[in-house]
Each structure stands twice: as structure tokens, then as C-alpha cells.
């Protein structure tokens, strides 16, 4: 019914760097984190063998979507997103609903490292997983923009349930658009994605829609990667 695009990007295409993760951990002074960078570089090398990136999106065609007053309508399904998401999607006409994952091996690696009594590596692996998942979403967003450009359409920024005032419970409705077990990602009753390090969301598409930066200044979620990106310290 919907156009479906499915990819398996290579790890080396994802531009994973230890510096972003170090910044997420809070460090900006090179003297304090030298030892941690060595550990992270080793973990990134191990991750290359464990991560199996997979991602994709479905296209909701033109004139099936609209947004107003904190609500987004996607092919008849109503999403209560709050204004932070509905505002920039006001000129939405179609949409790409996307999901991406680092793959099932990552969760096992993270759990095993913690259970073996190495909490520092376990913590870094967790941050690394989030970084890889977001990089997969960045990679996929470019594919969505390429698709839209081919149709002479423009794209919004990407928005995910659980962020920007959009309740994570709405993720179930979003997953209804995907073929069964799309990219191997499933949802628990409490809207937790499995594998754990996965990203899902929407990119608005339309002839007049504009890409707008995340309005982090009006959001009160302190520990958010989107906010993190704004605070990135050059290292």
C-alpha cells in the first residue's frame, strides 16, 4: 500500500566519533579524558563487529497528511504531538515514517559488559549505542531528503515520539504503518523499542514545508540528544 524503502548501511558510512560521545559524557578538557578516549576507541572498533545497522521508511503520499493545533493527521491516523512538532509540520502534505536500529547484538554486548562487572565500559557502550542509532537516523534522513527531492518536494526536520513534547505511547500508532517486524524492530506494551538502541519517527514532506531547527529553548527535557547537539563543545 505504501512505498517501502529498506537499507543496511555500513558501519563506516555512519561517521561515529569518540569525540561526540566524550562531549555527551560532559568533558571538554582534553587532559581529563585522554584515558577515556582510548577505551572508547577500542569499543568503537569492537562495535564494528557487533553492530548490524538496518533502517528504512514508508512513504505516505501527497495530500494524505495535515497538521494543526498540536495534532498531526497521517493518512487518517491522529497524533497528539504538541505544538513543537505540529507547528513545523503545518505545511505537511505527505510524510516518511522511519525506523532504524543498531541490531540485536548490541543489547547483548551492553548487558554482558555490565554483568561482567565493567560499569564504565557498560556506560560507554550505552552512549555509543545511542550515538550509532542517531547516526543511522542521520544517514536515513539524507535518503528521505533524496527521495523527496526526486519528487520535487521538500522535507521537515525529523521528529520522534518521546521527544519534543510528543508522548512516547504514540509510537504504537506510528508502527502501524510499517510492514510486520520491519527492520527487526518491535515495540513492547510500554512503547520501548527492541532492539533497545533504535530510533523511529516522522519526516514531514511537502512542496512548501521548511526544515526548522529543534526549538530546544521551549522544551524542558534536560537530558535530550537534540539539546546535546546544541551544546556540543569542540574537542
Amino acid at each position, binding site marked *: 500500500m505504501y512505498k517501502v524503502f529498506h537499507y543496511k548501511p555500513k558501519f563506516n558510512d555512519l561517521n561515529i566519533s569518540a569525540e561526540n560521545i566524550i562531549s555527551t559524557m*560532559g568533558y571538554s578538557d582534553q587532559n581529563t579524558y585522554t584515558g577515556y578516549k*582510548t*577505551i572508547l576507541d577500542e569499543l568503537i572498533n569492537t562495535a564494528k563487529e557487533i553492530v548490524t545497522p538496518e533502517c528504512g521508511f514508508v512513504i505516505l503520499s501527497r495530500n494524505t497528511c495535515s497538521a494543526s493545533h498540536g495534532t498531526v493527521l497521517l493518512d487518517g491516523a491522529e497524533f497528539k504531538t504538541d505544538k513543537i512538532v505540529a507547528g513545523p509540520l503545518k505545511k505537511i502534505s505527505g510524510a516518511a515514517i522511519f525506523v532504524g536500529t543498531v541490531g540485536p547484538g548490541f543489547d547483548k554486548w551492553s548487558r554482558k559488559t555490565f554483568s561482567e562487572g*565493567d560499569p564504565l565500559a557498560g556506560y560507554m557502550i550505552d552512549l555509543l549505542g545511542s550515538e550509532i542509532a542517531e547516526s543511522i537516523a542521520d544517514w536515513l534522513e539524507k535518503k528521505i531528503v533524496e527521495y523527496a527531492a526526486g519528487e520535487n518536494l521538500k522535507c521537515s526536520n525529523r521528529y520522534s515520539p518521546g521527544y519534543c513534547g510528543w508522548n512516547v505511547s504514540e509510537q504504537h500508532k506510528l508502527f502501524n504503518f510499517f510492514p510486520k517486524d520491519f527492520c527487526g524492530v518491535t515495540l513492547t506494551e510500554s512503547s*520501548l523499542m527492541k532492539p533497545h538502541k533504535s530510533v523511529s519517527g516522522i519526516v514531514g514532506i511537502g512542496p512548501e514545508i521548511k526544515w526548522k531547527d529543534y526549538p530546544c529553548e521551549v522544551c524542558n527535557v534536560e537530558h535530550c540528544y537534540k539539546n546535546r547537539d546544541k551544546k556540543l563543545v569542540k574537542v
Partner: protein
Amino acid sequence: MKELLEKLAVAIERGKVNLASPFPPDLKGEEGADELTKRALDEGVPPEVILNDSLMTGMRKVGDKFEQGKAFIPDMLIAAKAMNAAMVHLHPFFESGEVVLKGDFIIGTVAGDLHDIGKNIVRMVLTGSGWNVIDLGSDVKADRFVETLKEYPNALVGMSALLTTTMMQMENTTKAIKEVSPDTKVFVGGAPLSQEFSDKIGADGYFPDPNKFAKHIATLV
């Protein structure tokens, strides 16, 4: 003896686990918490003195730096790892009752939630602060907290959640605990939470910072 205890406190604070540990780079090749604790015991230093004057001092110092924004979670974790290496040597003294811990603390991530990094960090900080931590893991239902409380009736309880969908489980769990044990202190933590939420569900406090939390519950002993 004083010099040895100070060296051990530094090993904890800096996260020098043992002789073989390459971290931190400037202490490479030096003895770590493992060897120094064993040496202190061999030299006849009472285990309680090692715990209070070295291990907890080291943890407190890194915790204070964390509060001041001069240290970060990895520094707390590496210190906790060094602490664990030292605790292996002290464990027999806890079992025999020669060294008494501050109390029991039951911790878990609530039902439906599998995020356990934050919970694990709190567990380590509390262990390093001298608590006997009973970790129930993740996806813990209310009745499991209640059952464990029967086994450790004087324990404090801590719950963690990372999702707005699962934080609501905290209300059921707090109610279930308070029904059977109204005086039990229940604390909550997790990214989407706030003190306002803690008050609303009848919990006894929300703490975003594990070190401040450890300091707070130390006042309850």
C-alpha cells in the same frame, strides 16, 4: 599507616583498580585499590578504618567533584569499580558482622521498563557509600518490591524509569509499598521525572544526582 590509607583513598578517587589497570594513565604501573586494601589488612589496619578513612573518603571526594561539575559519570563509575575491587577483601568482615554497613537499600527499574544504566550508577554510588544494595534488576513489578521489603523490613527503596509510559508504574509501586509499610522511604529517579511528580505519587523524594542522593539518605540513618 596514614600514608597507605591516603594512597588507597587516592586510588579510589582516581579509579585505579589494580596494578594491571592502565587507567588512569598517570598511575600506570602503580598499585591499585585491590593491592592497597590487601596490604592494609595484612599490616593490621582494622577493616572499618579502611572502609571509613580510605574507601568512603575516596568516593566522597569524587562525588563532591561530580556535584561541582568537575567530574562526570565515568569518573564515578571508575571510582566505583576500584571500590568494588577493595570491597572484595572486606566482604568477609561484613559477613562476620565485624564491619556494619549503613543499611539495606532495595533498587530496581519499574515494570515495563528495561533501562537500567541510571539504576546501575545509583547502585554503585550507594555500594561505595557503604550501603547493602539489593538490586532487583529491570522490569520489576510492584509485588516484587513488596516481597523483597518483607525480607529487608528496614530497607529504603529506590525506583527508576526512563519512559513517560513506565513512570506511571511508580505510583502503583509506591502505593503498594506504603500500604504494607507506611514508614518505608521510597525514592524515585529517571530522566522524565521531577520533584513535583514524586510529591504527586506520594514518594519521599526525587534525586537527579546520585551523589546528592547518597548524602541525603546518609542523614536518615
